[in-house]
């Protein structure tokens, strides 16, 4: 309860700072040595916070039967969430498989892990404009490649990393005596995986899954924006940025939408944790 009030106060403080600077800051922003360090305070650059909220009630376009911005953003959020979920699922499968492979063999770990880390320095999102062309021209087993797949692939690419690394740490988390015990029982590696390593990895896995959900959402939005896929938040970011001249508060709507999608995705994964409660007990004596 206290945390809730404090959190609310935090958001209010942020709003107050924004409005205060807007009220007292110079129109052209603050420039130090030729570099702009504080923003301009014009209506265009810094719309009032209530303007940002008002936009949600406006019609999204000039058409007479246009939906409100809120409806459009919600629809786009649903679209983005769906693609992100697909990307997340792919990431979970790939990440877990890699983690199990690396936990199984030391050689596999030393061969693969550097590449897994390296993979995150590759701006796959930067490749999005290149991937866009796949849409019309690639066919996989009679299935025509859709732009949505490209977006999901990019989301999965960002999301598999925390899962692979987190799951590997989790799978290697059992203490030596527990591993020795399984060895003493003479049971195979797969039984050890099922009875010891997988359950032990749950706490690590849950936080990895949550990180992956955020990554999947981020990847989806950015890939939508750079591929230009219609229907999702990413595309709205671009569209509404272009209409900033008419209504400077409008570009903020999809940003709030993106935050909402991210929080929902994280929340859903957190719910998963409730079902796995028994596996999150920490051993007292260890």
């Amino acid at each position, binding site marked *: 309860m206290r945390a809730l009030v404090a959190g609310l106060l935090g958001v209010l403080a942020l709003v107050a700072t924004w409005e205060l600077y807007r009220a007292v800051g110079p129109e052209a922003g603050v420039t130090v040595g030729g570099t702009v360090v504080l923003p301009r305070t014009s209506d265009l650059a810094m719309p009032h916070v209530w303007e940002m909220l008002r936009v949600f009630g406006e019609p999204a376009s000039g058409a007479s039967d246009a939906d409100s911005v809120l409806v459009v953003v919600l629809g786009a959020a649903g679209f983005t969430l769906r693609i992100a979920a697909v990307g997340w699922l792919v990431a979970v499968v790939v990440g877990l498989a890699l983690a199990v492979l690396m936990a199984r063999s030391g050689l596999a770990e030393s061969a693969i892990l550097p590449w897994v880390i390296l993979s995150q320095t590759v701006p796959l999102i930067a490749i999005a404009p290149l991937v866009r062309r796949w849409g019309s021209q690639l066919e996989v087993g009679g299935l025509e490649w859709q732009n949505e797949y490209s977006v999901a692939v990019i989301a999965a690419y960002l999301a598999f990393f925390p899962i692979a690394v987190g799951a590997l740490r989790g799978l290697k988390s059992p*203490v030596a005596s527990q591993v*020795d*015990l399984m060895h*003493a*029982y*003479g049971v195979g590696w797969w039984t050890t995986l099922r*009875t010891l390593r997988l359950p032990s990895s749950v706490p690590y896995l849950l936080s990895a899954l949550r990180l992956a959900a955020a990554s999947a959402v981020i990847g989806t939005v950015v890939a939508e924006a750079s591929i230009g896929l219609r229907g999702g938040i990413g595309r709205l970011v671009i569209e509404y940025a272009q209409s900033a001249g008419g209504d400077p508060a409008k570009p903020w709507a999809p940003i709030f939408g993106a935050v909402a999608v991210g929080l929902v995705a994280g929340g859903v994964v957190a719910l998963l944790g409730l079902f796995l409660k028994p596996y999150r007990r920490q051993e007292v*004596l260890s």
Partner: protein
Amino acid sequence: MSAGTHAVEVAGVSRVFDTKKGPVVALDDVDLTVAAGEFVSLIGPSGCGKSTLLRLIADLDQPTSGTIAVRGKGPRQARLDREYGIAFQQAGLLPWRTVAANIELPLQVHGVAKGARRARAAELLELIGLTDFADHHPDQLSGGMQQRVAIARALAESPKLLLMDEPFGALDEITRERMQNELVRIAAETGAAVVFVTHSIPEAVFLSDRVVVMSPRPGRITGVVDCQLGSSSSRTDAVRDEAGFFHAVAAVREHLHGTAPVAVRGVETR
């Protein structure tokens, strides 16, 4: 007693570890025989190879040279045939399983049917006096209770040999003595031979039929002390105050320190 009935036979066993700073001899030409039903403690300072020896017997590690027989079989075969139960300094209970489910773990991985598992776990809970805690989780138990559960788990498949690596090492002295009393009783009730690794001289003397004293660099057996403090039923806390107990303690100490300090020799010569 024929060789086949011995719980453990170790003959000329050495274990050399390759480290970055060159080879380290953890065990050098060790011979040891543990009879069926016998309680033997391994004692010595850190690095004397007592835990290594236990791990070799359990087939958690392999000797560089020499042979080991566990109940007449090679260690690997003995492990696969579940000839021994094992407990470590860390209870190593699985935190997501209840106390009963932890005791059932070895039975479960070996495919014992659910009903039989339940029954056996109930028996063992009775033996360690934790019947009321069957559905608790390890984090709700004290350290001593956790270690009792670990011992019950080691006994689950009714092994004729128990291997214990400093199982009471992390417990406070008071809990520790109570656990020792219980272990004496449990060992007698099950008739299992025990190989028990410890740092504590009184613990080794109180528990054991024989105490094997080891020294480090390289790990060797430097002496064996017969304790024989009476049958398990008569071995209660009172034994800790008897002269025989102190004599055995002094004897072990003498082996440990090589040339015994004057005070200890005084005890030894009465």
